[in-house]
């Protein structure tokens, strides 16, 4: 026995992981159609789960981005109802009272002016008011709501003798005004009013998008404003938003705290998100079922593969393969098949998420845990699906190569 042969003999029976991988890849490479079809089941399951998680995460990220920009410390104060069911107006000094509190950073409000309509010009019939409300602004509403102007400015230095108005996004669209020029003016309460600016939509106060804003100062004389705010917005100290929320009603109206309603607009958005989360759970379940069916498909494919390859197993046994080598070969093949489907699923799911998120204007977020979890699931599925076929292959007798024709 030569020296080389002697060294070889001592290593007999060792099949490196890389060789096993090569065997698995080869086994799949020579049966491409079957591989694609059976990996497809896994791919669909994983893609469904990744897309569901990805879309939900992207939506969450979009909301988080909005909330980060707007802040979650905004509190909204509005008139509540008394015992008798009447609406209790907010006290006239609500805004200054809130502004004086230490736990409130800033506060502003609007008072809806009843009975006044807003028109594009003086020739529009009185009935065609377009549902635009006239709101008198107390305090720095733009700052409190983080309102952006898409055109013009918030109430600036008076550029003309006319009173000024700022339009909400919907109100501006209704009036057909998309840009502010020095000459832009509208008709309110029988007088011309200069348009100073147009606001972007207000995510935390969508009820104000169809409003036309005028300063409270002067509104009493010009438009008949009664001095009572109807919506007040306060920025609470971020550390104690919940506590402040509980205190505000009494602070605003010590005599009748029940007549004051306090809410937190960011809660509404979060609640909406929670509703979507339960829907996400359902879709995940459906994806899980698809994954299970895909796993059964892989097991089925592997069983058939083993049946077809008795001769190959026989040849390998004749070449010196142990039962373990045969079992490992088919197990690796099953794992690869499953992993291939899983990888394709992750890519498809990611692509679906990206397309959907971009079309919604959301950031694209595919959580790493979802990708890792998806791939881990496919490994588990591949292992389980391959276990039975592989152990069957390992039991094929070595004489099969000779018996086969």
């Amino acid at each position: 026995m030569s020296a080389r042969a002697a060294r070889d003999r001592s290593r007999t029976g060792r099949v490196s992981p890389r060789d096993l991988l090569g065997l698995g890849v080869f086994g799949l490479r020579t049966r491409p159609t079957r591989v694609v079809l059976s990996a497809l089941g896994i791919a669909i399951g994983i893609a469904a789960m990744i897309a569901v998680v990805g879309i939900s995460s992207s939506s969450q990220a979009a909301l988080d981005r909005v909330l980060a920009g707007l802040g979650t410390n905004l509190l909204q104060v509005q008139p509540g109802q008394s015992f008798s069911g009447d609406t209790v107006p907010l006290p006239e000094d609500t805004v200054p009272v809130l502004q004086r509190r230490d736990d409130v950073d800033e506060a502003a409000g609007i008072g809806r002016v009843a009975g006044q309509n807003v028109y594009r010009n003086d020739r529009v019939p009185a009935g065609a008011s377009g549902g635009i409300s006239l709101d008198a602004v107390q305090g720095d509403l733009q700052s409190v709501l983080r309102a952006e102007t898409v055109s013009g400015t918030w109430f600036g230095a008076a550029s003309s003798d006319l009173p000024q108005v700022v339009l909400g996004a919907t109100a501006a669209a209704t009036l057909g005004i998309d840009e502010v020029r020095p000459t832009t003016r509208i008709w309110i309460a029988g007088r011309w009013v200069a348009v100073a600016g147009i606001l972007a939509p207000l995510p935390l106060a969508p009820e104000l998008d169809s409003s036309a804003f005028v300063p409270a100062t002067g509104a009493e004389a010009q438009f008949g404003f009664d001095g009572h705010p109807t919506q007040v917005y306060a920025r609470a100290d971020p550390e104690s938003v919940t506590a402040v929320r509980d205190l505000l009603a009494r602070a605003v109206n010590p005599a009748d705290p029940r007549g004051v309603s306090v809410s937190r607009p960011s809660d509404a958005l979060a609640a909406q998100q929670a509703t979507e989360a339960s829907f996400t759970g359902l879709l995940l379940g459906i994806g899980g079922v698809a994954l299970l069916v895909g796993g059964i498909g892989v097991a089925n494919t592997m069983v058939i593969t083993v049946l077809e390859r008795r001769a190959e197993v026989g040849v390998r046994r004749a070449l010196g393969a142990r039962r373990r080598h045969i079992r490992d070969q088919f197990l690796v093949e099953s794992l690869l098949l499953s992993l291939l489907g899983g990888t394709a699923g992750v890519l498809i799911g990611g692509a679906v998420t990206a397309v959907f998120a971009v079309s919604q204007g959301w950031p694209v977020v595919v959580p790493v845990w979802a990708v890792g979890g998806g791939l881990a699931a496919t490994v588990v599925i591949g292992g389980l699906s391959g276990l039975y076929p592989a152990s069957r292959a390992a039991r094929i007798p070595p004489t099969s190569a000779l018996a086969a024709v």
Partner: protein
Amino acid sequence: MSASTTVTGVDEAARASSPPGTGGDEIVLELTGVTKRYGDLAALDDADLVVRRGEFVAVVGPSGSGKSTMLNVMGTLDRPTEGTVRVAGRDIGELSDDDVSRLRADHIGFVFQHFHLAAGATATENVADGLLYAGVPRRERVSRARVALEKVGLGHRLDHRPHELSGGEKQRVAIARAIVGEPTLLLADEPTGALDSTSGAAVLQLLHDLNAGGTTIVVITHDLALAASLPRRVHVRDGVVSAAPPPAGGAATQSAGVAS
């Protein structure tokens, strides 16, 4: 019962101490009183056979004679119901399934009638597979596979896949796969059975060349003419092994001689 075949008087000491490479009387394969039963049917009945290093033996018999069973037993693919099988000095009966696999990887090369090559793999890859379970690193497997292919005259077909090869060429690849591990014993099952006569003759010539180079070969065949061309013949009929052709069995040359 059988007429016991050929050679007797196995010298234990000689077998154990026979130094490598000196050839001659080193026993490579030894069947002693081997019986294989399937249910009530004895496919092989009390067979004895000794094959020494460097021999070229034909195991010949009609289909159903038990020669396939004999091949399975000789190749350690199946275990006998009774009797002992020794390959390269090791008693199969004492070995576990893993050890027998290891013995095959180290000592036995198989050539099949229907080649059994991997369809999508090149000639080199197919031949390299012959070393896969012998623990040879990949790079070395490939280089040794090339050498083996050149040895069987396929140096120009290294990267061809089986469907690009003729039947004779496929069988040469299969032979290369069987010899790439330098086996102690090469077992060929009807190696020319699926080939036309020209290719068959070429494959047979290749086996003769390998034998001349020192490879111990046992060919299982039903082809009396092929058997007649080999130095030594062992006849199998109804599970019984004999050195001479059975009386009823046709015209083949008799006198099973001991080779070398």
